[in-house]
């Protein structure tokens, strides 16, 4: 009897071990390694782009930094690598903490563009405007309307020094890993490549690391759970807010966490009431990779800058949810409806979202 139980136990352990997706674990470790390597390369190479930042782009005020982060995110269709670049520029002293904060905010504003771009592609393929663009537009509207007030709140927090005590730097054990696994490669790149190219290689690697990270995410099997009824029931805004934050903390990308909503219902629908708090939650934890990047830099105050961003957007989002959720929802949805109601409105909207970051860059 005891032997049988021991055999069953062994079988259970074996079956558990064999069920672990080792390829995904390996992919995760590889993407994490590439992320750290990329940050190091960007940090080493950022100094080489300083003349470009000061000369060609002439980034010398907050509007410029905001516009630069925003346009840069449009260009590479992702926000996180731009936020990491901002931190690399901060590390070399090319940007001060306020301009770094502005560039990170700009990166988040530009990151919403990807969801809209995918929507445009579907429209070109003959799909309906409203269906293709709703989610992207709402995501952009929520991001712009919450990040802009949060930007000013974040600047205030940074200026006040309230968050200065929250600073993190890589510890001894991390440094030892860097010495063995990262620096040999980054030093090699620095020895053979021009400094600006080291930065661009780092940028390419960080984008690759995010791509690989997406691949190692587990398949979402939320359909059968309580949360799987997200398309059928109207959830409490704070519940959806926390869900959006949790899903994005795992997926590290707002566009990815929004795409997770599709399999949550058989038809790919989500209730209007649920989507806005979800995006608000996602907009906070999407900073998690930037927070990790900040902790890998030589300057401890980089962490404070990212934290100011997270705290300010959290405050603004929670206030909106608690005080004016219904009005905010109605206005955001009306705006999205207006944009998709005609081709003319869509063109006007397209011109506005493309021209604002350029104008900010030129101020």
């Amino acid at each position, binding site marked *: 009897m005891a032997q049988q139980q021991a055999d069953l136990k062994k079988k259970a352990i074996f079956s558990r071990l064999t069920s672990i997706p080792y390829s995904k674990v390996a992919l995760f470790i590889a993407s994490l390694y590439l992320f750290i390597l990329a940050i190091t390369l960007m940090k080493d190479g950022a100094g080489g782009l300083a003349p470009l930042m000061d000369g060609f782009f002439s980034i010398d005020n907050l509007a410029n930094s905001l516009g630069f982060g925003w346009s840069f995110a449009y260009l590479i269709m992702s926000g996180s690598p731009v936020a990491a670049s901002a931190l690399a520029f901060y590390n070399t002293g090319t940007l001060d903490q306020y301009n770094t904060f502005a560039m990170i905010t700009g990166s988040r504003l530009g990151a919403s563009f990807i969801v809209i771009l995918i929507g445009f592609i579907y429209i070109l393929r003959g799909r309906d405007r409203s269906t293709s663009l709703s989610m992207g537009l709402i995501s952009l509207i929520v991001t712009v309307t919450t990040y802009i007030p949060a930007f000013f709140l974040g600047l205030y927090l940074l200026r006040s020094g309230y968050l200065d005590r929250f600073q993190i730097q890589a510890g001894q054990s991390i440094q030892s890993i860097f010495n063995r696994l990262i620096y040999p490669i980054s030093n090699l790149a620095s020895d053979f490549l021009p400094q600006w190219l080291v930065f661009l290689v780092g940028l390419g690697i960080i984008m690759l690391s995010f791509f690989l990270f997406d691949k190692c995410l587990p398949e979402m099997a939320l359909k059968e759970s309580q949360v799987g009824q997200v398309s059928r029931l109207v959830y409490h805004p704070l519940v959806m807010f926390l869900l959006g934050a949790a899903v994005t903390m795992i997926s590290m990308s707002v566009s990815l966490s*929004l795409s997770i909503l599709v399999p949550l219902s058989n038809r790919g629908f989500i209730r209007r009431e649920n989507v806005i708090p979800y995006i608000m939650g996602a907009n906070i934890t999407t900073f998690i990779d930037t927070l990790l990047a900040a902790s890998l830099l030589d300057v401890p105050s980089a962490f404070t800058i990212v934290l100011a961003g997270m705290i300010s957007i959290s405050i603004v989002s929670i206030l909106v949810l608690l005080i004016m959720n219904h009005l905010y929802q109605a206005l955001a949805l009306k705006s999205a409806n207006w944009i998709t109601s005609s081709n003319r409105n869509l063109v006007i909207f397209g011109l506005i979202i493309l021209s604002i970051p350029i104008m900010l860059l030129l101020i």
Partner: protein
Amino acid sequence: MKILIVLSNFLSNDELLTFGGMFAQQTEIPLTVLAVVGSDKESHLADAKKNLAEAQAKLNLPNLVTKFRIGDLCEQVKHEVEQENFELVIIGERNTSYIDRWIHRFPSAVVAENVPCSAIVFKGKAKPIRRILLCDSGAGRASVLSQFTAQLARILPGDENVTILHVMSQISAGPGVTGKNLRANTDELIEEHTREGLLVEADVQALHDLGIHSSPMVRHGLVVDEILAEARSGDYDLVIVGAHEYQPPKTFLLENIARQILRKINKPILIVRGNEDFDRK
């Protein structure tokens, strides 16, 4: 159906009694009118007795029961309902402005949410109930709503017209989703046997089986906004919604839509609670 009318200071009791009296005409079970006073002060008790005497005169029913209780309104009504097994409570609430919704606690709404039976919160002017708006969320409580609506319609004088409303507030969750249903009207949704179409069709059939004529309607937009818009534009005399679910974890996870409608609407609203809700609470 055992009905309790609660007199309070929130509204002209005259209008409330006119409204409540309509339910007494077709039922043989005596109607009960309850006055609740905050304390046993002489003046409070005198007011309660005066209100009950006026109710007696106004309703002029031979088997009317009048009572008064002293204490917290919500607690006292709850005790009365539990003791006497009332199936419907009717309580008045004044019309609510935007500022009211921000600063007031809405005692009548609190009563309606806490009594262990269905409740009508009466607002506005008392007029015969001809047009009823039945809001079905599709959360699986259609049978409770239909049965109660039919039960209610039987004790009301005349023929009622029931509109079954389902609000489809969904949008597409991603760019690649086929969203034809998101713009379809009621007939199209029924013809294509979509989830919403089947839902309203089942409601119509359930009411038809109970002898009530009804028509289906699906609107697209935010749930609360669309219910309020339909209630206002359709000149309904009574709006019926299901009570907030009290089964954990749903009670913490879900929005209390019934409360939002209750606070924003200026018409009589019936909040239907099924037997299973009593146990959960």
